[in-house]
């Protein structure tokens, strides 16, 4: 049964909730894009520098479209730049996974695979969303995400099924980062309202397809899926790990030091 045909855009999913929901997606893309950009000039090889920089660029482009949309929903006169540069840590609602430090290149790749598969499943689902603008943004972003996953999963297989050293490193990163994946599929009030309005998928169903694809990749990479951890960081509700503040101080420096500066 298709959600779109059963549940019309509901009054229950009002302006405030829609704004929060879109902002979560935007922040997740923005913060991950910013994190990945830290590799520019430091990646293990020129090709990886280009690869990571291009993925970062796609994510920031997606964040711009989503932030602009969020700003229009909010209708308080905030544009993409104001939303990106003039909010404080607790107002950011990205998933805690994407703000985690890059670590070594393998750690970055592990995080990327976990989030790429999530994005791919979510963006593909949005094709059936009752929110037309999300459908349009997702139709564009999903094509980019396919390339991201090709890149990240290719590297994870090489590193996992590589040397003893590379295998140990990515397995350790996977063990460290796994706890942050619980948040991806633990719905809160806004997720439930979004699902009821046909805007967003059921997160439990999404987890099923995510896990299926993740298991395939981990299997090929000879890696072991860690046990699930019940504790959930709610980055999407503004509860962040210590790392986001440092990232923001870097990303927002110019606008904070010279308010309103343009070039």
């Amino acid at each position, binding site marked *: 049964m298709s959600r779109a045909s059963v549940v019309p855009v509901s009054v229950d999913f009002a302006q405030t909730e829609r704004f929060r929901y879109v902002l979560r997606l935007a922040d997740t893309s923005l913060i991950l894009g910013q994190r990945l950009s830290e590799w520019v000039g430091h990646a293990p090889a020129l090709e990886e520098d280009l690869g990571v920089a291009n993925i*970062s660029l*796609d994510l920031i482009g997606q964040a711009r479209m989503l932030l602009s949309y969020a700003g229009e929903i909010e209708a308080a006169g905030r544009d993409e730049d104001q939303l990106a540069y003039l909010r404080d840590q607790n107002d950011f609602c990205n998933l805690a996974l994407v703000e985690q430090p890059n670590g070594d290149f393998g750690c970055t790749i592990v995080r990327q695979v976990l989030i790429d598969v999530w994005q791919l499943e979510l963006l593909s689902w949005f094709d059936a969303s009752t929110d037309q603008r999300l459908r349009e*943004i997702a139709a564009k972003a999903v094509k980019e995400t396919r390339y991201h996953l090709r890149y990240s999963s290719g590297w994870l297989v090489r590193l996992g099924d590589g040397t003893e050293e590379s295998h140990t490193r990515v397995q350790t990163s996977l063990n460290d980062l796994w706890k942050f994946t619980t948040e991806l599929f633990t719905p809160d009030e806004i997720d439930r309202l979004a699902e009821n309005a046909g805007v967003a998928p059921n997160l439990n169903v999404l987890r099923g397809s995510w896990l299926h694809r993740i298991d395939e990749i981990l299997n090929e990479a000879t890696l072991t899926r860690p046990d699930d951890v019940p504790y959930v960081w709610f980055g999407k509700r503004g509860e962040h790990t210590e790392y986001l503040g440092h990232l923001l101080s870097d990303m927002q420096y110019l606008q904070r030091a010279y308010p309103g500066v343009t070039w």
Partner: protein
Amino acid sequence: MVTMVDRVRLLDVETRDQRVWRILSAVADPEIPVLSIVDLGIVRHVRWSTDDEPEIGLTPTYSGCPATDFIRDSVRHALSVNGYPKAHLVEVLSPPWSSTWISEAGRVKLKDYGIAPPNCTTEAVGNPVCPRCEGSANEAVELISEFGSTPCKALYRCCVCLEPFDYFKPF
């Protein structure tokens, strides 16, 4: 036989649409200057509010393409100096741009410029043909980097002539 008089008459009846499309055809893509934005397929529509106010619909290739703002400025400039200072530019997101929208002329220009044009489907399957050996090296290419000098390109190497080349990714 087309006489000079006929030619003048043909020029005379150039419609406002044709005129605007002709102006847009002269706007180069900043990353691949041999391609115009019309070759690239990113001009989605030309509409009119009044006779001197065209509305141009542009679509980005990739979400984060850094050339997008530059292209908008170039379009605004080209229209302005050609008599349309009041042109209005809008961003069109849907349907999303696809590399299958690159014109046939555009594909030839890409190849001549040394960039392998995308395989015709939108999925990332199949190998490009080396734009220098022109098919004698069919399939004998290797991927150097999934991502190249711009988001829309990957980097390959031809195993026959050993030259690296850019591949415009199917998208």
